[in-house]
């Protein structure tokens, strides 16, 4: 009896299944095309935060100074300061790493590019160790080399169950004095630098990474592209009257990679 009624209904489940299949295809396609053109909501929030530029500039001026001297690329004295807060374990930071590297390279001594540690320890439990490893390398004048490895090999160490071993391998690759590195990654100076940067980030109420400030104003996330940053930096260079042919003397090395403030110490 029951099987008879089942036979009568035999087309219905297939209809439902077919309808859901079509719905998934159409809905999926609609979502795919619409999400490709839509700016993401977090970026919108960041942009909205930037609207309150007046108070943001005040907060920027009054925040803790961060690790001193900071890691600087470019000019020590340029009036145009590009300051990045990043987390080595944040995938978006590694995606944006080449963008900021390119900006530092394009403008070279016309801007002062500062890197700050902002490990989001609640979300990225290996990020603090990575920041300390970079700072320990910085104590041997190899901060940027270590940073390069940490960002470009993020997928490797981030998914590893022994990330500290990999940091040691990276230290070897960039030719660090290993006994010194081993003692620096557990010592206070490197940690204190990370903590100082963290205090600055907290003072600035940085809540996501990467966050980039140009002369105290937070760059909206969707503008964190080479073109977007160039527009902002060019405008600041013009505003400060620093856009034309700056002397390229300060801190430039022969390879074109400027030294950091920390490394000059």
């Amino acid at each position: 009896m029951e099987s008879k009624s089942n036979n009568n209904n035999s087309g219905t489940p297939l209809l439902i299944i077919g309808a859901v299949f079509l719905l998934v295809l159409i809905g999926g396609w609609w979502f795919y095309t619409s999400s490709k053109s839509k700016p993401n909501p977090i970026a919108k929030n960041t942009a909205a935060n930037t609207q309150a530029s007046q108070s943001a500039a005040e907060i920027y001026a009054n925040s803790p100074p961060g690790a001193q001297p900071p890691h600087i690329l470019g000019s020590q004295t340029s009036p145009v300061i590009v300051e990045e807060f990043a987390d080595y374990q944040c995938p978006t930071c590694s995606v944006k790493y080449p963008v900021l590297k390119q900006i530092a390279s394009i403008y070279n001594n016309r801007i002062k590019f500062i890197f700050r540690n902002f490990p989001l320890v609640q979300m990225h439990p290996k990020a603090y160790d990575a920041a300390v490893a970079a700072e320990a390398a910085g104590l041997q004048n190899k901060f940027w080399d270590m940073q390069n490895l940490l960002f470009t090999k993020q997928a490797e160490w981030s998914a590893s169950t022994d990330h500290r071993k990999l940091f040691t391998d990276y230290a070897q690759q960039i030719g660090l004095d290993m006994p010194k590195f081993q003692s620096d990654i557990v010592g206070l100076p490197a940690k204190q630098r990370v903590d100082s940067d963290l205090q600055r980030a907290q003072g600035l109420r940085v809540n996501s990474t990467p966050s980039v400030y140009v002369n105290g104003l937070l760059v909206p996330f969707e503008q964190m592209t080479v073109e977007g940053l160039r527009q902002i930096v060019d405008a600041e260079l013009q505003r400060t009257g620093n856009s034309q042919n700056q002397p390229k003397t300060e801190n430039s090395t022969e390879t074109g990679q400027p030294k950091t403030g920390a490394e000059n110490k």
Partner: protein
Amino acid sequence: MSENIFKQNGNGFFKLPILAAFIALLGLADAVYLTIHHFTGEAVPCNMVTGCETVLSSQYAEMFGIPTAAFGAAAYFLAFSLAILAAYGNRSMWNIFGALVVVMATFTAYLIYLQGFVIEAFCQFCLISAATTSLLFIIFIFSKVYNSR
């Protein structure tokens, strides 16, 4: 007996496959969202609230070049189809549904392990999927326990 869950005049347990189908739909929507996110993949900033980006951009977000979420979407669609067929009286489909759900639950346990102990970050959309799979598993076990009485 095994017919109980399909009897419309039973104690209401004929609704179990229908309930399972609705939950599978939720899981399907979640997995489709994650799959599309994988392909549109625009970077969003990392923030203090979610580790989603860490999880979704990890090496475990893909298997054999296919997004892990796409496997989930296929599994949920299959689970939905089997539950619908079962709800309309095809009892053998409920057993196949059960076998599928056991595989899904096992794989989910592995993904939770990866998030907790290897990637060390959790993505709420992956956790939603874990919850829907667990519910499907519980419903199936419940139907078996109920029927064996």
